[in-house]
């Protein structure tokens, strides 16, 4: 008898919940931190895995938990593979610095940076492919398809374009890269789609960016004025002792602090807009997503998480991740329905190791959004 026929009426709407308790994640954080110290940070692969297992397991979709099936050993293997790649690369950079005349050494450095930007794109793609392949719900795996090499080149070229346009290509680049990833992501055999809402339905991408850009620009100028002027005064024969120089000092510090706060707020506002845009462009079967990430709550999350990490010397890492997931899950609403019985497992279990590149490049923040 065909089970999918029998369950054909199971067209369901989708509700997400996050049930993780902070206490459990604090305990995990302590354990991870201590073992990291004792193992020259090599325990990090198992720490990361255990944290993800708990995060995934505490996130439920229609009451049934997500599952993370990765292992620490897979990440460790990815790390060993990455070492094989990075050591010759590192030796080459070191040798270039030693043997090449300055002009060629600078040229080689530019080349190295280009390769690094490309590698970062590749690393982000590979890390996501690994994480998707190790994420399952109701026994059905997620997957990421497409070419990591091409994604790396797109990242590199978009980075250069963003530089040339003084950042103005940045938001478009972000959406295009996200679109490339999501349109090649699948739950079982059911592909995600990337459809920017047309017209007024879509969130304006560039309004917040323009404000953030101007804010950043003004902040930057403010910072230069605030730091450079007193510094220049102290360097030349004027000296810091002169009362008129000292009079400049307090306004300079006030300007600098105001400039940093202003540009930080503008940047956070824009970041909230970006993830809202990303969420509303993702589709799965009949499902569409809305993320209610507001600037103030987003800023609060970012600031408190940063403080938690600093004040606990990193012990709070799992708690910080839990807070991010909780924020996203509680603010994500899913409209429409999906025929779950018609979702079949897809062939292919994904790579046998993962994230070595991302670890080598210290891209520790690469965790997939739900």
């Amino acid at each position, binding site marked *: 008898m065909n089970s999918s026929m029998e369950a054909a009426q199971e067209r369901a709407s989708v509700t997400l919940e996050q049930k993780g308790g902070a206490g459990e994640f604090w305990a995990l954080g302590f354990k991870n931190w201590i073992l990291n*110290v004792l193992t020259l940070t090599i325990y990090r692969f198992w720490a*990361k895995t255990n944290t993800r297992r708990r995060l995934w397991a505490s996130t439920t979709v229609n009451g049934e938990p997500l599952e993370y099936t990765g292992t620490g050993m897979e990440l460790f293997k990815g790390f060993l593979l990455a070492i094989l790649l*990075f050591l010759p690369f590192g030796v080459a950079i*070191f040798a270039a610095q030693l043997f090449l005349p*300055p002009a060629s050494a600078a040229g080689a450095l530019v080349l190295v940076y280009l390769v690094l930007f490309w590698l970062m794109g590749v690393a982000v793609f590979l890390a996501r492919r690994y994480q998707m392949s190790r994420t399952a719900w109701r026994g059905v795996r997620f997957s990421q398809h497409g070419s990591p090499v091409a994604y790396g080149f797109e990242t590199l070229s978009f980075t250069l374009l963003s530089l040339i346009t003084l950042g103005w290509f940045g938001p478009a680049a972000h959406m295009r890269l996200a679109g490339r990833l999501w349109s090649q992501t699948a739950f*079982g055999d059911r592909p995600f789609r990337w459809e920017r809402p047309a017209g007024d339905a879509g969130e304006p991408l560039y309004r917040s960016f323009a404000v953030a850009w101007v804010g950043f620009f003004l902040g930057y100028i403010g910072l230069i004025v605030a730091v450079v002027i007193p510094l220049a005064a102290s360097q030349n024969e004027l000296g810091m002792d002169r009362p008129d120089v000292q009079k400049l000092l307090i306004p300079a510090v006030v300007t600098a602090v105001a400039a940093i706060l202003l540009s930080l707020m503008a940047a956070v506002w824009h970041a909230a807009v970006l993830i809202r845009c990303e969420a509303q462009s993702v589709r799965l079967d009949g499902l569409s997503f809305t993320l209610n990430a507001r600037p103030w709550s987003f800023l609060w999350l970012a600031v408190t998480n940063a403080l938690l990490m600093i004040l606990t010397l990193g012990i709070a890492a799992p708690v910080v991740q839990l807070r991010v997931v909780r924020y996203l899950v509680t603010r994500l609403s899913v409209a429409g329905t999906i025929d779950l019985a018609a979702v079949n497992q897809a062939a292919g279990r994904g790579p046998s190791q993962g994230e070595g590149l991302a670890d080598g490049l210290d891209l520790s923040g690469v965790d997939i959004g739900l």
Partner: protein
Amino acid sequence: MPPEIHARYFDGKTAAAHAATLAWGDDGLHISAAAVSAHWPRDRIRRLDDGRDAGILRLGVASSPDERLLLDGDDVARLAAIAPELFDHRPARRAERRLVIGLVAGAAAVGAAIFFGVPMAARPLAALTPLAMERNIGDAIYAQARLTFRRCEGSQEARARQLLNQVADQLERHADSPFDVNVQMVDTFMPNAFALPGGRVLITDELVAMAESPDEIAGVLAHEIAHVEQRHVMQLIWRDMGFGLLLDAFIGGSGVVQQAYLASGRVFQLRYGREAETQADTRAVEMMQAAGFNPGAMGRLFHRLAETTGESDLQEDQRAGLEFLSTHPDIVARAERLRALDAPASGPALSDEDWSAVKHFGCMNDLTDPVAPFGGR
């Protein structure tokens, strides 16, 4: 007849949920639902999630890795009553303990190799480095250094340089250096001297200006010649590469712990740098004595240097604290140690006339200096 155990069964082929009942027997778990049934062998069943987060127990089976059973509420307790082995935490704990012990032992081995093996290997590696290679490295470093400070030029410079090289030659005769030492004066704002790989020694005009006798400069040259003789810079390069590449490769992830380990690597490296400085001082004294110069003169120059940096005003324990973070040993202690060696020399390293030629030379005084800030004076 015990109460029925209900579970949600997922066959690993579709995302459809099947309401199933479970039966536990000697051969394992029998799962029956309206449309499907399955048998999970007893020794292949794994507990994937004990349910402490979402309150849902999750079971899987090794022989069919995508199949899942989810249980919650009273059903978990009922299963635990008849199949306690599925709830045994001990095997997982044992596996974790083994992993942690293995990782700690492995990390200790890697750490020992990086923190002790690399410095130990640096000296033989430096000795094995072909001389031509070290010269090439020296040329490249010199070319990079030229970007930050200018070489002094002009006829007065040529004379002063010739005299300094004369002193260096006298000292070199008592050294066992694989390279010919070549002294050059450079124009920068710091009193300092450097030995580059391959035998090039740079001495700044500020240091020459600070010296009050030719033997003081001879002492500096002897110290740098000792670095060249011992191939200290080549050792530093090998250590740098070993620490930089290996430590950076192994250490990763969690911010503060990572930074702490990287910083400790740098502090560790400084220790070996200071050892090299002490060794160079010792060798310098031997060369100075063999050449018939006064080794105590170096101490006077160091003392003057310490006064300009303010280090001689610090307490001994403060200086010890600073030494831990610095490339050179405590300069005040060095000065005192060297000054104790004050001995009448068989003659100064340079005649009064020659010394004044060196001494009254400074890049800023050099009329022919092509890039003097105001076009020369």
